């Protein structure tokens, strides 16, 4: 049950009145500064619920910090309620006409000053256009002073600003509320805490950080990609039995791949810095740690310090590997290459002896396999969910057992990849015990890495993936050329691109004309090839992809249009984010029948002998 309350050291988004979002890590015993909106102790939001609106209060004389107050919704909506009530009381007056609505607002706590000093009417219906700056009687210096000394969470400043506005009584109720909103956004010392989940994070990245880093992927498109990729929980975890490899055995001791156990696996190409992987992990239920009392204790440590101490931890790991050796020595007699299916919901870590070097740490189901173009995957955004793909010794995280990464080289030419093709080191226990701890640690680390890489590459090459999801800067045709053969029959493909052109070219590879030509044997290069060879079609100039491998290909785009909903003032927002629209290409992996196949229907033969029959079925 994640996101029930704000946990220590978790990343959160603070939404400020100005609409700006600040993403910070809530470290216990620190102060959080919101700039002009005030500073407060982080401990005051720890273990408090998300989505509440807090108000930074004035420091009490005897305290060194500002306390927070939860703002009830009745106060948040006071203006709207006043307007609605006024409308109910006087239904004849249409919305926006001169009524008592704004005076009602003045009776609210925020406007006590207004009441006391200005008397009754502060708003009047008029069509005059008011220049705000020209009519404000307070000088900038005075405002600054007010801000400094102002109390009551900025409400004083707002009230005084409204009061000293010369033309306040000439404003319509609408323009007055607009003016008040403007000033409130600027001075009210309020904020809201949102959990960092995929929708919040991507929105922040898109609107306030560098949108190009996540390929301008909007929430609408993220939702579409997830649904069309059919990304969902892929079944209970299944682990391969530890082969209990001893230090002497080589390759033969690897846990053999069991293809029938592989299920619910998705293939991803992600150039959004890990956001797409995070979105998929969220849909598969492997992004968030389950709240657990024991984990809370582990989280108490400062994580930023942890990163710095990585090198130190490595040495610790060497110490533990010393223990490892002793254990494997004891188990040597039992060691067998037999692997049996082991099903357990949670991988026991602490109560069981440590796994041997060749134990496969990954689940066989519900996994994400990331294909990356560089030698290391760029999944840095996963740090916001406390997962660091580069950390050698990682605290427990569900992604550890469910995220597999491999490079295109490892997939397509594994023999050229050193970590895949170099046979594992072997050493007898006597020699090992004479080694320095650091050398021993390296020895085990290399063997573990070898087993991991072997498993990832071999299981990926075994294919039968449940779907392919892509958001990449690479040419989608080249991706599909190698990824399509890896998909199970009927598996969906969902490819996101910020621009339309690459997807249009891709869709054209599966055009009716191409499929018909292919099916009726008009492509000379396909002659005499088996179905299996055609599945791994290398591509020709005219047929970059085998056009019969994808069904129902289509391109679409979605856009959410936001509206303002206020009494009498409901309309779509005037401006929204522009830039890349974003498109997705979808289809399903087909298993074409062998041999020539013709569509049913009447079609006239063309006069030219070699020409193509009319597409009939589609």
């Amino acid at each position, binding site marked *: 049950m994640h996101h*029930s309350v704000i946990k220590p050291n978790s990343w959160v988004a603070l939404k400020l009145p100005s609409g700006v979002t600040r993403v910070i890590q809530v470290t216990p015993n620190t102060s959080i500064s919101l700039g002009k909106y005030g500073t407060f102790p982080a401990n005051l939001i720890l*273990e408090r619920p998300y989505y509440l609106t807090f108000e930074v209060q004035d420091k009490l004389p005897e305290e060194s910090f500002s306390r927070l107050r939860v703002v009830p919704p009745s106060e948040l909506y006071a203006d709207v309620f006043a307007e609605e009530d006024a409308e109910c009381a006087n239904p004849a007056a249409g919305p926006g006409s001169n009524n008592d609505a704004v005076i009602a607002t003045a009776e609210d706590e925020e406007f006590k000053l207004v009441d006391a000093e200005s008397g009754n009417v502060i708003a009047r219906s008029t069509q005059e256009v008011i220049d705000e700056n020209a009519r404000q009687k307070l000088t900038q210096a005075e405002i600054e002073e007010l801000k400094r000394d102002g109390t009551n969470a900025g409400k004083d400043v707002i009230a005084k600003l409204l009061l000293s506005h010369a033309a306040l009584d000439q404003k319509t109720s609408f323009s007055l509320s607009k003016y008040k909103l403007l000033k409130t956004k600027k001075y009210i010392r309020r904020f809201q805490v949102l959990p960092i989940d995929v929708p919040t994070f991507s929105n922040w990245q898109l609107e306030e950080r560098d949108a190009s880093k996540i390929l301008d992927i909007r929430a609408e498109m993220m939702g579409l990609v997830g*649904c069309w990729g059919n990304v969902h929980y892929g079944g209970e975890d299944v682990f391969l039995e530890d082969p209990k490899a001893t230090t002497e055995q080589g390759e033969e001791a690897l846990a053999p791949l069991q293809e029938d156990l592989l299920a619910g696996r998705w293939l991803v190409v992600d150039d959004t810095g890990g956001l797409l992987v995070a979105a998929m992990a969220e849909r598969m239920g492997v992004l968030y740690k389950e709240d657990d009392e024991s984990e809370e204790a582990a989280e108490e440590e400062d994580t930023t310090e942890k990163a710095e101490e990585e090198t130190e931890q490595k040495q610790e790991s060497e110490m533990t590997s010393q223990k490892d050796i002793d254990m494997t020595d004891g188990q040597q007699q039992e060691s067998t290459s037999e692997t049996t299916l082991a099903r357990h919901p949670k991988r026991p870590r602490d109560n069981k002896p440590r796994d041997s070097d060749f134990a496969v740490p990954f689940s066989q189901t519900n996994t994400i396999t990331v294909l990356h173009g560089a030698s290391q995957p760029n999944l840095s955004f996963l740090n916001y969910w406390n997962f660091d793909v580069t950390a050698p010794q990682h605290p427990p995280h569900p992604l550890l057992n469910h995220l597999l990464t491999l490079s295109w080289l490892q997939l397509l030419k594994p023999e050229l990849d050193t970590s895949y093709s170099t046979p594992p080191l072997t050493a007898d226990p006597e020699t090992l015990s004479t080694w320095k701890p650091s050398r021993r640690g390296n020895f085990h680390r290399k063997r573990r890495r070898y087993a991991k890489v072997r498993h990832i590459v071999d299981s990926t090459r075994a294919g039968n993936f449940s779907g392919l999801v892509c958001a990449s800067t690479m040419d989608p045709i080249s991706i599909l050329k190698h990824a399509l053969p890896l998909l199970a029959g009927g598996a*969906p493909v969902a490819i996101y691109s910020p621009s339309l052109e690459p997807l*249009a070219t891709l869709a054209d590879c599966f055009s009716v*004309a191409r499929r018909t030509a292919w099916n009726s044997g008009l492509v000379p290069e396909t002659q005499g090839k088996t179905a299996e060879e055609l599945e791994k079609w290398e591509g020709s100039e005219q047929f970059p992809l085998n056009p019969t491998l994808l069904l129902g290909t289509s391109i679409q785009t*979605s856009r959410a249009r936001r*509206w303002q909903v206020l009494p009498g003032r409901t309309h779509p927002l005037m401006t929204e984010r522009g830039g890349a629209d974003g498109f997705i290409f979808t289809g399903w992996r087909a298993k074409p029948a062998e041999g020539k196949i013709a569509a049913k229907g009447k079609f006239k033969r063309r006069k030219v002998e*070699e020409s193509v029959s009319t597409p009939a079925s589609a």
Partner: protein
Amino acid sequence: MANNMTSTQPTVSPFLEPGLRTKPRSLAILQLSRDNLLPIYLQEPSGEHDGYAEGAVVNTRYGSFPHSTMLNVPWGSQIRASKVDTGSRGRKRKRGPKDEASRDDAAEENQPETTTDNNNKDASEATGVKQAVADDSGFIHVLPPTPELWTQSLPHRTQVVYTPDYSYILHRIRARPGSTIIEAGAGSGSFTHASVRAVYNGYPSSAENKKGKVFSFEYHEERFHKMKKELTDHDLDGLVHLTHRDVYNGGFLIDGKSPGADAIFLDLPKPWEALPHLSRSRPTFGAKEGEDTTAEWVSPLNPKRAVHICTFSPCIEQVTRTVSAMRRLGWVDIDMVEIANRKLHTIRDRVGLHYQTDRGVNVSPHDVEEALERLAEIEERVREQAARPRDAEDADTDMKNGDDAAAKKEEDKEQPPYQTPWIDGRLITKGEPEIKTHTSYLVFAVLPREWTEEDEAAAFAKYPCGKEKAVVGSIDKQTRKKERREQLQKIGDRKARRKERDAKIAEAVE
């Protein structure tokens, strides 16, 4: 636990784990053509069915497809049409030995091509069902069911919530594995299927075992029964709890107990009538007259989490009232959006004089040069015509010239680029002929969990204030510089310590 699971675990829905091959009883979506989808339940052949010797048969304009040819094949397989006797059903027909023989020949000829026949040969021999014979033409594809395919092919009972809307809604209401969702107005079930997929994290093994679940409400009795049957047919019974109820008056409790919802989707004509039932404590707003206010209030919401809601209404007046009710009931972050989705087709735009007249081809100059060339040609011909004296001798040459021109034209046609229509012309994209400009307005909102004075006091006691060491967030330049210096200092210290330790270890080893 692993052992007894096999006996008690229900069949997993083909929507969630379809496996690699088609199975009997499973729902399958037949793709007849691009947008023509047909959902069927695959049946094992068991003797004659509805007059067909092959067992159950799907007849389409693309041919006839006995279920036996679609069973136990990989999902996504292209299925060849079969020669099925559709004319003589019900009539007893005597087949001549000749007829029989020719059929067998055809079967043998076709067998190496159709792997599906081989798969089912054994089975059909055992049950005495006629072996399907592949036809010369016609095919379909058999796809595993997904909420997207189901949404496109389901029997419409009401307006359907389509993929562009439900994908966005589920993303925003944070429907995730393990969540509990309330859905009111089950309608045709498209949202139900999509939300089950979103919250699925396994079937509950017992009543206490809480897993992701959808609580669906439908007031229309006929729709309720149809939906109920559909859920059973799709093996979703353990994951969807369907209730026949008018939620405006009846609320959302199940047998007086709270479903503990994390997210809510309301596809109702009057969401504001249902909203008061979705409060944390007895609402003061929108209370029904004659309501028993003395009874204990049970909230259908999860008390430990913020609850996300989405309402789906086509009219702006509905939105105004819904939003107003939400404000009164304490919902925050109210946001209204509308989704516009566009599908795009890619086509090859062929313009040029060298094309033969055909559908989708525009036989007009494709650029100025081509236009110029043709205009010049015409002009020249006109000039020639004018220069020619009108007498009998020249008539012959005229004919000859005409022949030449015709021959030249023929020549052009000999190698028309039209032989490769898949790379001719310019690749362009076009919208669909008809677009959906408005589906419904989506209103999103969040209801934070309740926070009492006691909760606050407990949290304050656990995390007391006043010992703040550092400042996070906006800090001025000086502080930042100071922090950086301290950090560097720390790292330096650590490096020194490490060196020391390494030296010690080395000593010990020696």
